[in-house]
């Protein structure tokens, strides 16, 4: 059964992750520069500067294929939760450092970024939850249909 809600949410997440991942690769020097100045991540700046966009693109791949979308939505929840926790940390400890995110998203303040991420996190959670329900319903229908009729 096609789940249009999770398809729309998946597409929004593809747009977000693909856009920011490509931006991070295209402006790699800027991304690395910001990570190097982060009190929390400076020691891991170089590997993270390659791994973060790579992870985002891997999640994009999972979200594109309908059979893998459910796990893609779950990975999006994990990724967005990590980013949100990082934003909370930055807000509390180093609010004067610019965001290391890519493209137009980097123009947001930390507080705006927190709201933006929370909205996408809730969307990903809702998408995953609605797919989980569809998956369960499909399974139940399949079980009911497979029963041998009693004559």
């Amino acid at each position, binding site marked *: 059964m096609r789940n249009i809600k999770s398809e729309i949410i*998946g597409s929004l997440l593809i747009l977000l992750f693909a856009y920011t991942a490509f931006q991070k690769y295209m402006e790699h020097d800027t991304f690395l520069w910001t990570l190097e100045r982060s009190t929390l991540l400076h020691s891991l700046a170089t590997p993270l500067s390659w791994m973060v966009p790579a992870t985002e693109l891997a999640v994009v791949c999972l979200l594109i294929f309908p059979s893998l979308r459910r796990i893609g939505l779950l990975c999006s929840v994990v990724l967005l939760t990590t980013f949100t926790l990082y934003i909370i940390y930055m807000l509390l400890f180093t609010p004067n450092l610019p965001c290391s995110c890519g493209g137009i998203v980097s123009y947001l303040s930390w507080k705006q970024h927190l709201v933006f991420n929370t909205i996408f996190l809730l969307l990903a959670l809702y998408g995953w939850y609605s797919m989980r329900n569809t998956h369960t319903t499909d399974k139940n229908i399949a079980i009911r249909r497979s029963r041998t009729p009693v004559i």
Partner: protein
Amino acid sequence: MKQYLLGAIALVTAITLNSFTVKPANHPTATKNYTYNAYPDDSHTSDPSFYTLTANNGNDPLHCPGNTHTCGVVAQDDGTGHPDFTQTFTIEHRN
């Protein structure tokens, strides 16, 4: 194929948006290094006139090991050789 349509549209849109995103001239990477001249007195840290560019027009790095007092700042230039505190900046500390 219909199942891939929305995802494919999103991916193409992301790539297109990337092509039209221009890196701004005042991005944080366009910053310079400034030495704090009143070190270790931290009472003037918010006054730009107490900061001067490091050698090589602010391109030489700051030497600030530690985390006790303000030693310098990495910031954009305000046009007069001092840091612009209205933009984002990073404070460097020294013991």
